[in-house]
C-alpha cells in the first residue's frame, strides 16, 4: 500500500500511539515532581522520628557538650540570630540602595553595564569563595577576627545579589505614571523614591530579603572558612552587663565575640562517629529546616498575595 494513503484504522492507531506517548510523559513528569516532594517529606519525617526525643526545653537552653544527651543548641541558635541581625543590617540598606540606583538613577553607560554584569556573575560564585574573601579581607586585613561581625558581613555580601535583583524587579513593576505624578507636583527624584517607589515596592523587596536571609541562615561553608569554632560553651556578652571576669560589656562588644551557628553545630554532630550524636544532628537539623522553610513559606505567601492585590 502507498505510504500516504493510510486507512482510517491506521490513522486511529497513529493517534492512539501519540496519545499514549503523551500520557507516558505526563506520568514521568508527575513522577519526577513526586520525587522532589518525597525527598522533602522523607527528610522532615526522618528528622522528626530520629530527633523527637531531643525536643525538650533543655535542648534549646543547653550548650554543646561531650555527652550527647546533655548537648543543646543554645549557643548555635543565639549565634545564628545575631549573625542574621548583622547580615540584615548590612545587606538590606546596601541592596535596596543599589537596586534603586540601578532602576531609577543609572544612566545607560559602561559603568552601569559593568555593575549589572557583575551582579549576575556574583550570583554564580560558589559560596565557599565568599568565605575565602572574608578570610583574607575581613578576618586578617580589617582585623575583625573570627567574629559575628565577620560572619554577618560575609553572608551580607553573599545575599546582596538576591536582594538587589528582587528590589529591581519590584521597582520595575511600578508604572511610570506614579513617577510622572510625583515629579509633576514638584518632588525631586529622591523624594519620588522615598515616598512612592520604595514604599510601593516594599512587598517585593521584603520577599527578596526573606529569601536571602533564609539562604544565609543555612549557609555553612563560608562561615567554616572564616574559622568559626565548632565548640562554643558561652554566649556573646549582653550589652551593659558585667561578665564573670568583672568586665562590663559595651553596646557593641557582642559583634566581636566568637560564635557558632546552627549549620556548623549540625555539621559537628553529623561528623562524629558516635551514633548518639546523630539524634542531636537530626533534632538540630529539624529546627534549622523549620526556620528556613517558614521563612521561605512566608516569602512565597507574600508573593502570592502581592500578585492578587496590586491593581494600579
Amino acid at each position: 500500500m502507498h505510504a500516504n494513503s493510510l486507512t482510517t484504522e491506521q490513522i486511529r492507531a497513529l493517534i492512539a500511539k501519540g496519545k499514549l506517548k503523551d500520557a507516558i510523559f505526563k506520568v514521568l513528569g508527575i513522577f519526577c515532581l513526586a520525587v522532589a516532594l518525597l525527598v522533602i517529606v522523607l527528610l522532615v519525617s526522618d528528622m522528626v522520628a530520629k530527633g523527637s526525643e531531643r525536643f525538650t526545653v533543655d535542648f534549646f537552653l543547653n550548650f554543646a557538650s561531650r555527652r550527647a544527651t546533655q548537648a543543646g543548641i543554645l549557643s548555635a541558635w543565639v549565634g545564628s540570630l545575631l549573625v542574621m541581625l548583622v547580615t540584615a543590617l548590612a545587606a538590606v540598606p546596601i541592596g535596596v540602595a543599589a537596586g534603586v540606583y540601578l532602576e531609577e538613577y543609572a544612566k545607560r553607560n559602561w559603568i552601569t553595564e559593568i555593575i549589572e554584569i557583575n551582579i549576575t556573575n556574583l550570583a554564580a560564585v560558589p559560596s565557599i569563595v565568599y568565605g575565602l574573601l572574608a578570610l583574607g579581607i575581613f578576618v586578617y586585613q580589617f582585623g575583625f577576627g573570627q567574629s559575628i561581625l565577620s560572619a554577618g558581613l560575609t553572608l551580607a555580601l553573599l545575599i546582596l545579589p538576591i536582594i538587589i535583583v528582587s528590589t529591581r524587579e519590584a521597582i520595575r513593576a511600578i508604572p511610570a505614571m506614579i513617577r510622572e505624578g510625583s515629579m509633576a507636583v514638584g518632588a525631586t527624584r529622591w523624594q519620588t523614591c522615598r515616598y512612592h517607589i520604595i514604599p510601593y515596592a516594599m512587598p517585593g523587596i521584603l520577599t527578596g530579603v526573606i529569601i536571602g536571609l533564609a539562604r544565609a541562615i543555612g549557609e555553612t561553608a563560608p562561615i567554616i572558612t572564616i574559622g568559626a569554632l565548632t565548640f562554643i560553651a558561652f554566649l556573646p556578652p549582653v550589652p551593659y552587663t558585667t561578665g564573670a571576669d568583672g568586665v562590663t560589656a559595651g553596646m557593641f562588644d557582642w559583634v566581636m565575640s566568637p560564635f557558632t551557628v546552627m549549620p556548623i553545630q549540625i555539621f559537628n554532630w553529623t561528623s562524629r562517629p558516635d551514633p548518639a550524636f546523630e539524634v542531636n544532628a537530626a533534632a538540630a537539623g529539624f529546627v534549622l529546616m523549620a526556620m528556613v522553610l517558614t521563612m521561605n513559606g512566608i516569602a512565597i505567601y507574600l508573593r502570592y498575595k502581592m500578585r492578587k492585590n496590586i491593581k494600579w
Partner: protein
Amino acid sequence: MNHAMSANNPSELPVVSDRLSHKAMRHVSERIIEALLFAAAAVSVLTTVGIVYVLVSESVQFFQQVSIVDFLTDTQWTPLFDDAHFGIMVLISGTLVSSFVALIVAIPMGTIIAIYLSEFAHGKVREVAKPILELLGGIPTIVFGYFALLMVTPLLQKIFPELPGFSLLSAGLVMGIMIVPYIASLSEDAMRAVPMSLREGSYALGSTRLHTALHVVVPAAFSGLAASYILAISRAVGETMILAVAAGMQPNLTWNPMEPAATITSFIVQVALGDLPHGSIGYQTIFAAGLTLILITLMFNILGQWLRRKFRESY
C-alpha cells in the same frame, strides 16, 4: 506656615523667590543621595575585585614555593604532611566525578519537570508545584549532607553492599536532587517565553503535545536551557557541605564514584576546621584551591556564553 500664607498672596512675590532659594540646597542633597546610592551599587564590583585580589595575591605567594607544573601534574595531594605534594588533579577528580553524578540526575529530572510544567500541566498544578520546588531549593546544604550520609548511603549500601560509608556516589546523587529546582525553574521560564504561535503551528500540522514539546519548544528555548545547565554545573562544582559530610575528606585520585574522595571545596573546609597560622603554606594552599575552583567555574561559564550565542533564536 508663614511661608505658605505669604506665598498665596500675590502681592508678596519676592517671598516666593525666597522659597525657591531652597532649591540650591535641595540640589546638593539630591547629588549626595545619588552618590550614596551609587556607592551601594559599587559594592558588588568591589566584592568581585576583593575576590580576585585575595585569591590571586595569596596564590602568587603559593606559587613562589610550588611550581605550577607540579601543581598540575603531581598525582598526590598531601599539603599538610612533611613530605608535601601539591597535585591539584587529585581534588579536581573528586570535584568532576561528584559533579558528573549530580548532573546525570539533575539535568534529565530538571528538564522533564520543566517540560511537564510548561507544556503539559494545568495552571493549578503549576501553582502548587513551583512553591514545592522552591522549598526544595531552599533546604540548607548541610541538611542535604545529613540526608546523604545517614539516609541515602545506607539505602545504596543495600543495592551495592561493597559501597563504603563515604562515597562520591551518594553525595553526588543528593547534590543532583538539590540542583533539580534550579534547572526546572530556569528551563521552564525559557520554554514559556517561546511564542504560542510556534506551538499552534505545530499542533495545526497534527503534532502531539510531546512531539511539539521536544521538536519545537525545546529547540526554540535551547539557549535558555543551556544557561540553566551551566548554572547547575557551577552549583555542583562549588557545592561544599554535602561533599564534606558524605564523600569523606581523604584526597583520592579516582574516577570511580563508588569511592570516597576529597573535592576542592571539601579540602578548603577541612583546612579551615583545623588551626592553620596565617601566612603558612597550608593557609595559602586553600587560596590556590579556591582560585582553581573559580577558574573551573569561569571556564564553564564562558562555554555557556558561547553555547547561548550559538543557539540563540529570536522571534
